[in-house]
């Protein structure tokens, strides 16, 4: 049974595309086949984060309009043969994404892959509702910050009313990924704590992803963080999230790859001298 998962948030820049790539690669590493689909028409970025930007020939809109076959548009990852990408269109208008066309493509994706992961655009307009429409599972990506939490609440409302599952009166499986978390700042009382966000949004927690330089390093080289540095804290947190999605019980912890203060000051001094 294949599953369609939407990665959504309302607010932009919170880590949806990072999360889509990381979950996609971790699922592929676990042995299932997966296609990540970029719904961010006009602002395509998943191709860059996955390192496939120079291999894009056809895109989602071409397939929806029938100008290309799905097999022509889907790009297979060079590192993980189970991992695939269906890029967004960078130039065409998003009105070309008709409801019926998207439904047909989602059906075809379901037949070909174990997991289909839809990377949602920001906002609560049509692009975002189309990305979530066919989902069986939703991952709401939230930062521990007021506007992100508020927008997540709006998106949860849409998940409960605009998806096919919701319209049929079935339950859509919703999860929260709290990302860019900084445990030290939360402990100091300068960042919302995990419990605060959970209490406000009342969604089950899928993962806490620490704010980490490994995420930027991974996107610099065009490789999902779970593949680029599997031992880093964000990669381990995403890998645990995938195990939970696949039904395993994995204890939740706030992972961190921060070096201790002493270690840091020693190493930084060392490198500063070398750089000088």
């Amino acid at each position, binding site marked *: 049974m294949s599953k369609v998962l939407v990665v959504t948030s309302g607010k932009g820049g919170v880590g949806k595309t990072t999360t889509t790539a990381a979950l996609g690669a971790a699922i592929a590493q676990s042995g299932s086949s997966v296609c990540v689909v970029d719904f961010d028409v006009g602002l395509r970025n998943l191709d860059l984060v996955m390192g496939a930007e120079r291999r894009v020939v056809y895109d989602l809109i071409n397939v929806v309009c029938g100008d290309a076959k799905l097999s022509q548009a889907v790009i297979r990852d060079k590192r993980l043969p189970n991992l695939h990408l269906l890029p967004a269109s960078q130039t065409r208008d998003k009105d070309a994404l008709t409801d019926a066309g998207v439904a047909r493509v989602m059906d075809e994706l379901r037949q070909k892959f174990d997991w289909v992961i839809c990377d949602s655009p920001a906002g609560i307009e049509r692009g975002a509702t189309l990305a979530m429409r066919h989902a069986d599972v939703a991952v709401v990506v939230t930062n521990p*910050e007021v506007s992100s939490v*508020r927008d997540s*609440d709006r998106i949860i409302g849409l998940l409960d009313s605009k998806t096919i599952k919701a319209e049929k009166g079935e339950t859509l499986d919703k999860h929260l990924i709290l990302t860019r978390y900084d445990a030290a700042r939360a402990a100091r*009382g300068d*960042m*919302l704590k995990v419990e*605060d966000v959970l209490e406000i949004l009342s969604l089950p927690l899928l993962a806490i992803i620490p704010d980490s330089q490994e995420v930027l390093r991974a996107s610099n080289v065009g490789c999902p963080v779970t593949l680029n540095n599997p031992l880093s804290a964000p990669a381990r947190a995403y890998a645990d999230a995938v195990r939970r999605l696949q039904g395993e019980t994995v204890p939740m912890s706030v992972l961190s790859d921060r070096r201790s203060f002493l270690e840091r000051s020693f190493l930084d001094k060392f490198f500063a001298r070398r750089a000088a």
Partner: protein
Amino acid sequence: MNLLSFLKVRQTAPLARERLQLIIAHERAEVGRSQLVDILREEILAVIAKHIAIDRDKVQVRVEQGQEVSTLDLDIELPVNFNAKKAA
């Protein structure tokens, strides 16, 4: 003021949490109301359509939230010879 309460005052996250709880409760109620209005509009339209051929956007449904009472405002514009359909 002792050291502990001094530190507490400087924390910003508790205020963030409180503000969020208030605004989200307010917005959830708002969304709930507008969903109710949508449902009412659809059901009222269906009832009228059973008897009169009517234009969808000629039916306005509004809920006004007042201090003492709230009201449900219906504004339905009927076609000129609206009993023609059943009479014919």
